[in-house]
């Protein structure tokens, strides 16, 4: 908490994620953890922990229902996010989502940034001047976006096979189950290792980057980590809008929720690795 108090006294903060995005990410975390915990026992049904975990969560009847409740939450998150994008474009005529520093669309700068970042890893050059969304953040975003479409689509097929079989041949469900499971393994493995590392566990951020909970990034952090964005904001009068310091209550809640999420995620990764190795 002292960290927060100190920040409040000293530094200005820039708003990185608005409240809706933070809430959406909260529901995304909740549904993702729920789907992973209820789904992984099936994918690794032959592992000794699988049956125990499924029973601990209340048995098949319960996990079956939970999985679908969490799926509905995640679909709602997806729909809300896409609706917001549509509103931005269609209502506010804000086309910045398609190109430029505020867009998630991969751009040439991402390739050069990635190349430069690898060189920086090796200690050969200065760190690239990142902007609002870095190449790895874009990958995270599209991995989740694609994952939700693929896993969600195949999941709906498995949820309502009789409905889908009116149009599609039955073997599609063989593929749907395989893709649902493998893509889920990719998502779970990626989020719980790569995303956790990139966003929270890497040395510069360890143990946790609180921006997804507070929405705010300190001016110092922004200047150090996203010089290109900082530069753009500083050079345009009034753009460096001080959003105020993070609320200590939100900060603490985020710390607890985030730590729990990282803990659950790493536990699931451990179980998966156990199942794959033994």
């Amino acid at each position, binding site marked *: 908490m002292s960290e927060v108090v100190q920040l409040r006294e000293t530094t200005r903060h820039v708003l990185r994620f608005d409240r809706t*995005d933070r809430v959406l990410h909260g529901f995304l975390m909740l549904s993702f953890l729920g789907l992973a915990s209820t789904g992984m026992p099936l994918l690794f049904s032959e592992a000794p922990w699988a049956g125990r975990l499924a029973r601990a969560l209340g048995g098949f009847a319960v996990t079956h229902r939970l999985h679908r409740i969490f799926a509905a939450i995640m679909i709602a998150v997806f729909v809300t996010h896409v609706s917001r994008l549509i509103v931005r474009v269609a209502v506010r005529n804000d086309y910045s989502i398609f190109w430029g520093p505020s867009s998630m669309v991969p751009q040439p700068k991402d390739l050069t940034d990635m190349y430069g970042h690898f060189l920086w890893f090796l200690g050969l050059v200065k760190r690239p001047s990142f902007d609002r969304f870095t190449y790895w953040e874009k990958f995270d975003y599209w991995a989740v976006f694609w994952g939700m479409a693929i896993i969600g689509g195949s999941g709906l097929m498995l949820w309502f096979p*009789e409905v889908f079989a009116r149009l599609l041949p039955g*073997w599609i469900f063989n593929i749907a189950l*395989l893709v649902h499971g493998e893509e889920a393994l990719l998502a779970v493995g*990626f989020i719980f290792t790569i995303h956790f590392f990139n966003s929270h566990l*890497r040395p510069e951020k360890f143990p946790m980057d609180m921006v997804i909970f507070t929405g705010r990034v300190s001016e110092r952090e922004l*200047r150090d980590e996203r010089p290109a964005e900082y530069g753009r904001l500083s050079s345009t*009068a009034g753009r460096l809008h*001080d959003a105020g310091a*993070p609320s200590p209550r939100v900060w603490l809640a985020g710390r607890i929720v985030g730590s729990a999420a990282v803990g659950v995620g790493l536990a699931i990764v451990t179980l998966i690795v156990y199942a794959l190795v033994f």
Partner: protein
Amino acid sequence: MRYRGLTATLALFWTLALSLSARAPAVDATASQAAPTKSAKGAAPPAAAAPTVDDCLTCHDDDSLKRTNGTPLTVHKTVFTGSVHGPLACVDCHADLAHAELPHAEKLAKVNCATCHADEVAQYQQSAHAAARAGGSDVAATCVSCHGMHDIKSKTDPESRTYHLNIAATCASCHGNQAVIARGHIAIGDVATPFGDSIHGRALSRSGLLVAPTCSDCHGPHDIRRKSDPASRVALENVPATCGKCHEGIAHQFAGSGHATVLAKGKGGAPACQTCHTAHAIIAADDPAWQLGVVSQCGSCHADKMKTYRDTFHGQVTKLGFRTVAACADCHGNHRILPAGDPASPVARANLIHTCGKCHANANANFVKYDPHADKHNPKRNAALYVASKSMQILLICTFGFFGLHSVLWLGRGMKENRGAPARHARAEEELRGAEPRGRSEVGNVQGLPTERSDKDV
């Protein structure tokens, strides 16, 4: 003609003699001849009259009577007279004492039950028990192990060791006794405990059902043979007939199955009843745990089908231990399992809509194109699934390979970078604070930037 008359006369004579001496039937001639040769050691003078039961009990109806080694020699009068052999004289069995002087020698000849019960003893001689005795075992059962000695009761007597409801306990005195099992090298171990918990065992012990089978119903009473003996009632190919004595309807269904056809060839390679239901622990077939266990039993032969089943949702859920979804028998049937090529099989193409429809109410012709044993490694059977599987593999390997390397390199560099970071950050913040003071900007929304028009902290 003359001989026939003689035979008839003799028969009449014997019938009369037997009915007159019903209280103490005469000893069979073979016994009285055989016994003395065995007990020559006693050196009994031939002329003495045979001792009566009361003569014997004068000494033996006494709790203090013991051998020199301390083992008891007591025969209570009430016990003996209450036994099925109560009407007999002691010497009818202990034939070597028929002419002995009393008190007799301690060591007696072995009683030969075959004197009266020739058929039963002949059957016993074929049994695994007799074979073990012949092989030197001193624990394998003989007549007295199951029937007792002086207290033998008829199998119709509820107090008899061989009364239907008591047989399981009688067999358990050895087959549920770890000391005997070890000493007798009984490979199958304790069968009494699982049998006691079985549906048969509980029908006997809890419900007292005389129609419930006990040990001897499957193994036979006297000619108990090993299952490896083709003549045994419990040899693999004979099991359906043995169980079918009671479960006739099921045996009839099974007889029409593909398994029965293979079994009839007599070379094994097919399951009989006990393969799935187990021999002794037989669990009620509506127990979900048993139903799930049978899946692995099917898989012990149909390993390839098992593997592909486990890749499906059905196989995953059952593996987790939940019965909600289809196991083998739900699609293939249970006793009358037929290959998919047989039109009578529930998994024959024409029957699939009905079979799948048992769970999937609206299954149609499209729906049943689902492959419940799809093999992602087999491009011939499941081409699209194979391609999907390989593509997913490549995607996983590339993603984790690339970002694994990315993270490892970053970790190394980040740790180096972190040295002195707090001081550097403090300086940076000092510098930012020292800059021209800037208040909160009042400028509103700028395209592409998040705003919080009402962002009071949540």
